[in-house]
């Protein structure tokens, strides 16, 4: 959400180039995220529920900050890519279509980072066993900040990409995160292909149920699906323990 607002601010209001706007807001959000990690999340490290409670508290802080700065009313961002495209019998706006390559680039770069780079390996090590990682000399603080920072940057990018398509309001964040959360849990937190698979499943599920019944029923199905996955296969469809 902050990323979306950042893009709106830089692009719509200040007239900076769209892509640069996204990058700028990514930088800004990264700074905020790292600060939050250092100050608020560090003492919670390893304790999941207090971390989550803390983040919901911070959600309030962020939302109210945006409201106080920019007001509650919806904002909109102009499209950068104009035109419509026909893909396989369905008409899609160019704007939406462009999201696929752009986000693919981001995802792939992140994946490469995680798998190949030294920092990425360190991050995976910390995920699996923080104590062992510390013992071999990984700077846990840096890795945690890095993780938070990258997460924030990607979230900001997502926000920026979505800005031209959806209306902006301060309450954008949680519903999107919720959907993402379901996808990640469904697919498996330890598996990237799982996430893609889950995203597809969710997409189809939502479309079918929304058209067949109504959007609310789709949300019910999604929530029920999350509950079922958490109960029967907490590691997700393609995930594995640890």
């Amino acid at each position, binding site marked *: 959400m902050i990323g979306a607002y950042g893009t709106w601010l830089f692009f719509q209001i200040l007239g900076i180039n769209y892509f640069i706007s996204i990058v700028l807001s990514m930088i800004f959000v990264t700074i905020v995220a790292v600060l939050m990690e250092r100050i608020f999340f560090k003492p919670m490290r390893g304790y999941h529920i207090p971390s989550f409670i803390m983040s919901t508290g911070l959600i309030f802080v962020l939302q109210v900050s945006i409201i106080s700065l920019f007001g509650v009313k919806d904002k909109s961002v102009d499209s950068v890519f104009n035109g419509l495209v026909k893909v396989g019998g369905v008409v899609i706006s160019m704007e939406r279509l462009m999201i696929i390559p752009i986000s693919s680039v981001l995802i792939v770069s992140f994946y490469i980072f995680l798998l190949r780079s030294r920092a990425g390996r360190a991050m995976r090590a910390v995920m699996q066993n923080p104590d062992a990682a510390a013992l071999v000399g990984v700077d846990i603080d840096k890795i945690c900040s890095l993780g938070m920072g990258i997460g924030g940057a990607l979230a900001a990018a997502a926000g920026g990409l979505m800005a031209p398509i959806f209306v902006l309001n301060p309450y954008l964040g949680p519903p999107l995160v919720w959907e993402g959360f379901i996808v990640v849990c469904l697919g498996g937190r330890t598996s990237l292909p799982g996430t893609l698979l889950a995203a597809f499943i969710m997409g189809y599920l939502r479309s079918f149920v929304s058209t067949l019944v109504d959007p609310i029923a789709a*949300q019910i199905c999604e929530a029920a699906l999350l509950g079922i996955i958490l109960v029967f296969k907490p590691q997700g469809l393609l995930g594995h323990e640890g």
Partner: protein
Amino acid sequence: MKDRNLRTKCIGVLAATVISFLIPGFTQSPYWMHIFINIWISIIVTASLRFIINMGEWSFAHVPLMGMGAYTSALLVMKLGLSFWLALPLAALITAVISIVIYLPCLPTTGTFFFFSSYAFGEVMRLCWIKFKDPFGGPAGLILIPPPNPIHIPGFSSIKFGYLSKIPYYYLSLVCMLFSLFLLYRLEKSRLGSIAEAIRESNLLSQFVGIKVWRYKMVILVIGSAFAGIAGSIYAHYTTLIMPVDFYWGLGVYIIIYATVGGTRHFAGPIVGVILFVFLRELLRPIVMYVPLVYGLILAITLTFMPEGLTGLTEKFFDRSKKGELAKAEGTNEDATAF
């Protein structure tokens, strides 16, 4: 030494109770009555959530279950013509039964998983209120919920509930709160309470002294939900208007904030938390927009510097390290079967 402590506590509680009964003597303004009614109802919800937290699990379905109590009570009165005085206990009972359905699939999960699975199933329930206009009234909810029937005192006039005065509601919610707190306190001191503590401290060891963990977890969840139902019922007939959005996740977070800042270690924690935050909100009335921000900041500060909450600060006897408290909040992370 222990007895003196106990006696001071008893006197304190008695004094607080007497004072709370006398408050309408000092002010009868609807404004203040509303605040206190809010406090009493919120205390019921928060204290019953803490009862559940005491066994080691944080439920995010608690507030939706309060909503279930609200809807049930309202529907019992509106569609079945029952008197509120019958609907209240029935709503608590029905909420307890429904909570079995909600929590049963969540039982194999623990910790964060329980947190999110309870949210998922609670949300399914809440979405059903939005989806099914009949009988839940859809997104607009239920309006014109009748106030409780008048109480007839033989020899005196009757106590009427309605728009004229909030005082009857004040005493209704106060009495219900005191009743709930009494029961919750006794429950905690009873054998069930020690079993709950054992489960919280170590699921694994509890199993191996013969405690049927999942059965007791369910009992505790159901009891907690019954109290949420009571709170919901009072809420519905007081505000006469309930909507699904009244029970969305944000309110659940607020209740968790009250409990956390107040302190989950002590019975009085939720009480302290609720009173603190409700008065804080009134103080911030001129800048009401900033309330969530302030709440969020207070939560962040509390979690960082005093994770035991305010009541935890008064703990002098044992050396509770911060890690121990956070571990308690997290629940133990052993890979034990939950059954």
